[in-house]
C-alpha cells in the first residue's frame, strides 16, 4: 500500500466559548482563547490517502482530483472565515483543532472514491496539530 499526502493552507479565526459555562468558567477553561473578539491562525492541512497505484496510470488517485476536493470541501468553507459563525458543520461545537480536524475528516471521507482516506493532520500552529485516523487498523498494520 502507498500513502500520498497533499497539503493546503487556510487562514481562519475562532474563539472558544461554551454557553453552558459561566463567564468565569469560560475564562478558566479556555484562557485567552475565550476572547470574544476571536483570533486567527494560518492552518496547515495535510490529507493522506492510502491505496494501491492503478497499473495503467501509476497513481493511487489523481492529485488534481484531490486538489479540487480540498478546494471545494475545505478551502471554500473555511479559508478567510470565522469558524464559530460561518461553518455550519461546526455549529454547536467548540472550534478546537481536534473538532475542526474531525469535521474535515467527515467532509472528505465520503468524497474520496479512489483509495481510502488514511489521515487528516491539521496544524493550528507549527507547535500544535491534531490527527484523525480511521478506527480500523490499516491493511499493512502500520498504524493502529
Amino acid at each position, binding site marked *: 500500500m502507498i500513502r500520498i499526502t497533499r497539503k493546503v493552507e487556510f487562514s481562519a479565526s475562532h474563539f472558544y466559548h461554551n454557553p453552558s459555562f459561566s463567564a468565569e468558567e469560560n475564562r478558566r*477553561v*479556555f484562557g485567552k482563547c475565550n476572547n470574544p473578539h476571536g483570533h486567527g491562525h494560518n492552518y496547515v492541512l495535510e490529507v493522506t490517502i492510502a491505496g494501491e497505484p492503478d497499473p495503467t496510470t501509476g497513481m493511487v488517485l489523481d492529485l488534481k482530483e484531490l486538489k479540487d476536493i480540498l478546494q471545494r470541501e475545505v478551502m471554500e468553507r473555511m479559508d478567510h472565515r470565522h469558524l464559530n459563525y460561518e461553518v455550519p458543520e461546526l455549529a454547536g461545537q467548540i472550534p478546537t*483543532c481536534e*473538532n475542526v480536524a474531525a469535521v474535515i*475528516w467527515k467532509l472528505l*471521507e465520503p468524497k474520496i472514491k479512489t483509495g481510502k482516506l488514511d489521515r487528516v493532520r491539521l496544524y493550528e500552529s507549527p507547535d500544535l*496539530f*491534531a490527527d*484523525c485516523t480511521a478506527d480500523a487498523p490499516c491493511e499493512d498494520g502500520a498504524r493502529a
Partner: protein
Amino acid sequence: MRVSLTRRYRFAASHRLYTTKLSEAENKRVYGKCSNPYGHGHNYVLQVTISGPVDSATGMIANLGELDPFVQREVIEPFDQKFLNEEVGEFREQVATTENLAREIFRRLKSFPSARLERIRIEETSKNSFEIADEAEEVRA
C-alpha cells in the same frame, strides 16, 4: 475515526555517550566524537501525542493549560540547559543516548492524568529522530 493531539516543545541540553562497561578504546570506537569527555549539546525538539475522547463541553482531548505545565514540570525544567549525564539521575546508570532519553521522557509523561500518552517523538538534530509509542514501547531511529 480517532483523534489525537500533538504538541511540540523544545529544550537544549548536553550529553556524552560513554559507558564504564566498555574500555576507553571501545568507547571511542563505538561512540566516536560523541564520547568527547567534555560532552556536547543539542537543541532537542519533543513532540508529545495524546489521545482519547474529545470532551463535548470543551472540544478538547485534554486542556493545553494542563498539558503544558505538566510537560514543563516533568521534562523541560529538569532537562533544559542541563548536562544530562551529571544532572539527570537516570543517566548516571545508563548511556544518555536519545533512545534512552526518549524512554525516560515517555516514562515521565505516562502519568499525565487527563488523556492517554500515545507517543513521543524526539529530534536530536534535524537529521535524527526517535519515537516511542504506547503499544509496543519500541524505540526506532
